[in-house]
């Protein structure tokens, strides 16, 4: 499974939202960094 970043024009019609893609690139998710940010946010609220 790959995470992708897509750039393009979005349009919405009766079938929902569509993107006409101009660029598609792989997007590496930094899970540890994201988890740390979420942890800080949750702990900040408790």
């Amino acid at each position, binding site marked *: *499974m790959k995470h992708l970043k897509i750039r393009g024009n979005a349009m919405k019609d009766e*079938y929902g939202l569509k993107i006409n893609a101009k660029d598609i690139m792989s997007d590496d998710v930094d899970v*540890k960094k994201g*988890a*740390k940010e979420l942890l800080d946010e*949750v702990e900040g*609220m*408790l």
Partner: protein
Amino acid sequence: MSRETAYRVFSRELNSSIESKKGTEEMSPSYVISPLGTMINRIMICGVLTEVENAGTEEEPMWKGKVQDVAGTFFISVGKFQQEASASMANLEAPCYVSIIGKVRTYTTNDGRTFVSVRPEHIVRVEEDDYSAWLLETARSLWSRLLDMKDILKMADPSINDLRAKGYTEQEADGIKTALDVYGAPESVMYLKMIQEALRRLLPDENIDFGLPGDAGSIPETAEKKDDDSSSDDLMVEDMILAYLDEMDTDSRGVYMDDLVRRGEADGIPAQKIESVSSILMDKGLVYEPNLGYLRKI
């Protein structure tokens, strides 16, 4: 008709969703309404496939399966009309990480109990990193919905129009209003525990303890810090059970639970503790039951 969003929710939130809204017109979508007000038609889940079984025939298979995340178990059912998913199920061998996009179904028994299952449209084998990415995305989504609900609970008996005025779409407002009417104010501690479990899994080197009380409260002000060391005890026993499984599972078929209990008792751990911590490990997706009464590491 627009495509329904594939929501990310943990198994426990999904399995506690007993309210549904059936489509009234031909081809109109049906929804399961979660206690946090999410109207779910399609879902994206990820976790460990722990069981897979063909309850039908070879010609007309009916696949049943269980997928474990940090919060519990998703129940999977694939019939003959989901040909792609059915073919995928035939090639999967538990345990393995899977990701599924599918529709949510509810079934209510004569005595009023409601069961929720997922009917996959697509099911693929994935790696642990993909599971981690899903955990993070799902935990973020849950946190965001908890914060929304915290804001909404400040309003006295909000109407759909009140919610629309706060910027929610008609569908979101409908889901939130229905959830508040049917389930009441959500049990925030339970949801915070799910986020805590996900973060513990994602950040194993951090000592994450939200200090949540055992009972329900509103979010997040009433979540009080707890002053005991039972969770660190549990973590120690978790490590010991995992070490026992490494040591005792010599034929890769799992360890008989009674043998595991005896091994723990020899080290001074009470049988009840071994059993309760084994359940925690199953909930975390670290072990599973290959057969009734056996435990094996994933």
